[in-house]
């Protein structure tokens, strides 16, 4: 299985999903109008990854901004990770937010409530 590498643009985030290391990173900003088209390949990749996952999967969430259209797609990603978690694999979501960004913390808390995967809410300066 190949690494999924997508360069960031003005409206879409950097994506680096590494199947061997089990590290999935999303960083930058996500505000595409048609979020579904952007996130579809990520979901497909996760489907395939779930068939042969690494022992330990860590999702590094480092977005500093996302629109509501992206929010829905993010939940889909978290639900895929939840499915993986249910197969007794180790799955963690590291949700990074700027220490003053209460909205991003609140969003992390919201997603954490909507899934059973463990969320680490990590402030940065």
């Amino acid at each position, binding site marked *: 299985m190949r690494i999924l590498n997508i360069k960031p643009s*003005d409206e879409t985030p950097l994506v680096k999903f590494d199947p061997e290391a089990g590290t999935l990173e999303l960083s930058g900003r996500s*505000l595409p*109008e048609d*979020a579904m088209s952007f996130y579809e390949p990520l979901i497909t990749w996760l489907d395939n990854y779930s068939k042969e996952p690494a022992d330990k999967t860590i999702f590094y969430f480092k977005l500093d*901004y996302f629109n*509501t259209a992206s*929010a*829905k797609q993010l939940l889909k990603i978290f639900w895929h990770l939840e499915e993986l978690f249910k197969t007794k694999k180790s799955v963690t979501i590291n949700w990074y937010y700027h220490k003053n960004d209460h*909205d991003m913390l609140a969003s992390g808390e*919201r997603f954490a409530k909507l899934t059973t995967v463990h969320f680490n809410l990590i402030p940065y300066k």
Partner: protein
Amino acid sequence: MGENPRANFNFIYDLYRGMVQDGLTVLYRGHITPEITTLVLSTAENNLNYLNYSNTINRRVYFTLVEALQNITRHYLHNSASDSRLFEFFSLRHFKGDFLVTTGNTLEAQAKEKIRQRIDLVNSMSKDELKAYCKQILEKSEFSDKGGMGLGLPEMARKSGNKLAFDFVDYSDALAYFFFQVIISGSETNNASDQNQRYFENSINQHRFMVHNNLMMVYQGDCSQANVKNVIGMIDQVLMDKKELRKKKRILNVIVELLQNISKHGDGADNKTEQRPGIFIMGKKDSNYVLTSSNIVHERKAEDLIKKIERVNKLNFDELDLSINVKLMNNDNNNKGAGMGLLDMKLKSNNNIIFDVKPLNDEYTFFSIQIIISDTEPTN
């Protein structure tokens, strides 16, 4: 933005009437940075595609924008004074078939005379004289310490075919505010000078209006995604004040949702194109930011939208929170967006959504939405 936020909708409606005829207005009051120049150029380019002028006219508009904006970034005082009357100003309008590029900035009062002489000299020249003058400057090709060659003014005059308009407003003994305008005629014939004078006065009045109402940005044009990015980029530049950083993200959040709303659900001026005409205005009242968007909406959709807004406005914080979760979990793939825009705007602003609807004819309405971003935090 006036005592009563609703009163402001009349101004937007006036803009709309212009929109049908003219299709493009960008008014900006804040720091003009090289980043702003890039964003304005990109916005102009995207909009010029819909206005169907010849490449020659498009190039002239583009050239004038670059020169006029670089004139500010290169030459003038960047005044960070707290007096907002001194903020730099930029305006691009497509108006009655002509393009108006206007700038405003502070300069040292002692520089006035030199600038006046330079512009008067350029304005006194015939087309041939201007051509020879530009050639002469090019041949000398001496760069000033500010990086220019002094070719900007004569080239703008030559390419536009119109006289350069300018005026100074004294601010103090040491400072003056300088207005400058270039008119690019949409047709090959040059405009009558009294017509150009009216354009200039009109643009200065718009600046006055923006100062009076503390508006930072007015955008009227295509609101499809390419320009949404540009508008966001410009707002990024307007809100450079570190004290405002916390509000900045909420403002960007709301703007993205407002504009993507137009882009997704707005009715185009012409169904054959992707163009989504709309208006976006950002202003400040006390410490609150007032964000307004308007566009043309089919009457049936407008009724739906009103019901949705009224439903969202009735929700308390807990209900709002729950509604967002329900929307997030709803696995409806037919909706390109998430259908959460209104909920999110109320959540982020912690204020009710204000709206105004004006029927245009039996089928269409002009729909405005206003969001006020205040200092208050949402309460649990």
